[in-house]
């Protein structure tokens, strides 16, 4: 017998279920008064440096139906590419936001500042992007993906470069719909399925 490894195995995920909001966005579930306010209401405070942007979209299932019960979290650096807590980071950018698909329309909306570029471990620069994590009933392991921007130079991004089917790259790129406005739909399955990440 070889030596024994004392490593542990990650705890298995389970779906967040239909009532994920109770724990993560209580006010969405109709619960007021437990906490002063929900966590992650906005990734930015007034005075955040950089271009303010709004990203709207839907989370769409394999039948084409927009989820009304999805929970999304976003994580990003400030406009100079620094994450909260790093030296020199913009104190008005927490970088973390939690938002839900609207219970009637399924639309979500994220208002933030456009993130700066961040290098990968190799030192190679990644194009500006926002990381997303999606939890909902029927999603057994939370889904990671990224939002890139149509009006940035994405040509040298190392993650996008790894997508073999180049026709799928566009699923990670937010479409510009106006000044500071973008559209980013997330397709869980089916035609135009979003590239999800194991990262």
């Amino acid at each position, binding site marked *: 017998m070889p030596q024994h490894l004392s490593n542990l*195995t*990650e705890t298995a995920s389970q779906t967040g279920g239909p*009532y994920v909001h109770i724990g993560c966005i209580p006010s969405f579930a109709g619960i007021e008064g437990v906490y002063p306010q929900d966590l992650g209401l906005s990734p930015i405070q007034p005075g955040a440096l950089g271009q303010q942007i709004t990203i709207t979209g839907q989370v769409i299932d394999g*039948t084409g139906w927009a989820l009304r019960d999805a929970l999304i979290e976003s994580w990003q650096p400030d406009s100079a590419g620094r994450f909260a807590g790093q030296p020199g980071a913009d104190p008005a950018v927490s970088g973390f936001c939690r938002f839900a698909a609207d219970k009637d329309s399924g639309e979500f909306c994220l208002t933030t500042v456009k993130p700066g570029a*961040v290098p990968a471990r190799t030192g190679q620069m990644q194009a500006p992007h926002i990381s997303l994590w999606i939890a909902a009933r029927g999603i057994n392991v939370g889904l990671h993906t990224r939002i890139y921007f149509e009006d940035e130079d994405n040509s040298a991004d190392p993650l996008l470069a790894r997508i073999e089917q180049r026709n799928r790259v566009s699923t990670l790129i937010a479409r510009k719909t106006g000044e500071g406005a973008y559209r980013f739909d997330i397709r*869980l399955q089916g035609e135009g399925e979003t590239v999800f990440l194991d990262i």
Partner: protein
Amino acid sequence: MTDLGPLVPRQRDMHPVPYDPDYKTSVPRSPKWPLLSMESTPSEETGPRFGHGVIGPLDNNLVLNFATDGSPAIGERILVHGQVLDEFARPVPNTLIEIWQANAGGRYRHIKDTYLAPLDPNFGGCGRTLTDDQGRYQFLTIRPGAYPWPNRGNEWRPMHIHFSVFGHSFGQRLITQMYFEGDPLIARCPIAATIKNRSQLDRLVAPLDMPMARPLDFLAYKFDIVLRGRRQTMFENRLEGL
């Protein structure tokens, strides 16, 4: 900042399958194409941190944190406690844990839950806490009831508490569920059964922990959680292009 190393890749076979026809909602909501695998970057290795400033004194006490008329929540009082570690058995201190659950009758306080069981006016069903410097946490709550749900003809969820854990990296983000030792509904639950590795499912079942139960007050259950680790070697930094 110290480079703590890249995240250890997820062992996907230790997690539920994304697509499971016995859990019908997973059928249209599971990606069909393979995930894109890549070594973690600062985007996944960093993550939100939450300080003690956001945590109120009753946030981890679900018996009292929604006591609208001042009475404690109805139900069997339980302490749920445990430790958060990473895959290298290092404690994960100061990390946010959020929980949510049904009340003692199996009803959630949510605009969309219309189950017959009544709402408890003194039970909200959510709580949160930060782990201490050893990664330990505690909640005082009531044992949630089992409840029926639409899936196949006659489906009941075992008693469970939902857990959301942050870790220190966005790539460690985890939502899971804690079940209770001895509940016969676990073996019949298609959501629990999305986990195909038996020992991984067993690890979601919290044992009764009598030494931690307080006489004449509450029972106790222990639920430890393991998050992804970060690999620290002397050889992580590769030159660009190599």
